[in-house]
């Protein structure tokens, strides 16, 4: 399945089907993060159940401390 992530097309490997799996794939599971799929923000409690579909436009922004 391929999605558009932060403006770039990416092919997700097998086993990455939900928001939770996507976040852990990018090592963001313990981060403060905002996830948007097709212009709708996904609430944290739905990360486990929200499935990704081919062609989804996903934006992920994580917070960092530094400056």
């Amino acid at each position, binding site marked *: 399945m391929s999605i558009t992530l932060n403006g770039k097309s990416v092919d997700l490997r097998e086993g990455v089907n939900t928001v939770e799996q996507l976040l852990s794939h990018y090592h963001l599971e313990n981060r403060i993060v905002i996830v948007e799929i097709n212009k709708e*923000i996904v609430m944290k409690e739905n990360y486990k159940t929200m499935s990704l579909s081919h062609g989804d436009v996903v934006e992920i922004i994580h917070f960092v*401390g530094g400056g």
Partner: protein
Amino acid sequence: MSNRYSRQELFLGSKAQANINEASVIIIGAGALGSASAEMLVRAGIGVLTVVDRDYVDLTNLQRQQLYTEEDVSNQLPKAIAAKTRLEQINSEITINCFIEDVNGLNIEELIKGHSVIVDATDNFETSLIVNDAAVKHGIPFLFGACVGSYGLTYPIIPGETPCLHCLLNYLPMDGMTCDTVGVISPIVQITAALQITQVLQILSGETLFPILQSMDIWKNEKAEINVTQLKNKLCPTCGEHPSHPFLSFENQMKTDVLCGRDAVQLRPGLGRRTYSLPHLLERLESHVKNPVLNQYLLSCKFEDYRVVFFKDGRAIIHGTNEAKNARAVYNRFIQFY
């Protein structure tokens, strides 16, 4: 007639320029983001600029902290002082205030008083949340910004309009969560600060800012933007209907912060603060320390296996350890000589 702001005024208009000349902005932190933001604001002719920072200039800062020089490093100047000196060279027509302080829940409200905009340049997310509480409570726009590696993000908090920083959290950050040790390259500092200062100019020009969280990674050439309007939380402890501003609550304990990637710990005394006479302290310590550097603001010296940088207000940065407990013990052994 030639005017130092003429190029900017052609773009923004004379009314906006007048607003800029009358505005007072406070920057929290004078590290990389703070240096970049301060220089832009001073060149733009901001009426009053206040800079607050807890640290002193170190050699490893020079790669990205544009206000500082090798001379500042050898003089071990506090960043707030070195920044003020440099900023006054750039523009002598404006007022620059500087404070050598660690921003916390007890002093932030006093610091931001009377300012029209607050710019975030802290090096940790916890402090940004303290500033967010104070900004919302006092109705002052707050421009969040942070960067690490080649990645940066910004978000404008307009009290009463946009969701605040606290609304955006999907969980509360734990101590040390923000400890990033991957380094940073200077271009991302410039971009992040540039976005924040563009927002300052927009606010002072009367433009409306939208609640858009923005991030970019300049190494990977990735950008993201999320409109976070729907995250405005009616029950938010900071900006909701019954706010408690939890990050401003009383702190009366000695506070320790492990400084990420620097093999150092900062210690800050709690209430009942005092002012120390640094020459007196050095006199007492003389036979126990090596390579002391004393200036008006701090005493830096080698003590046992550590380098201790001790500020007048009792705050200290202990180099050579990453452990809070160990740093406390060193601090206590050090201060007993006073």
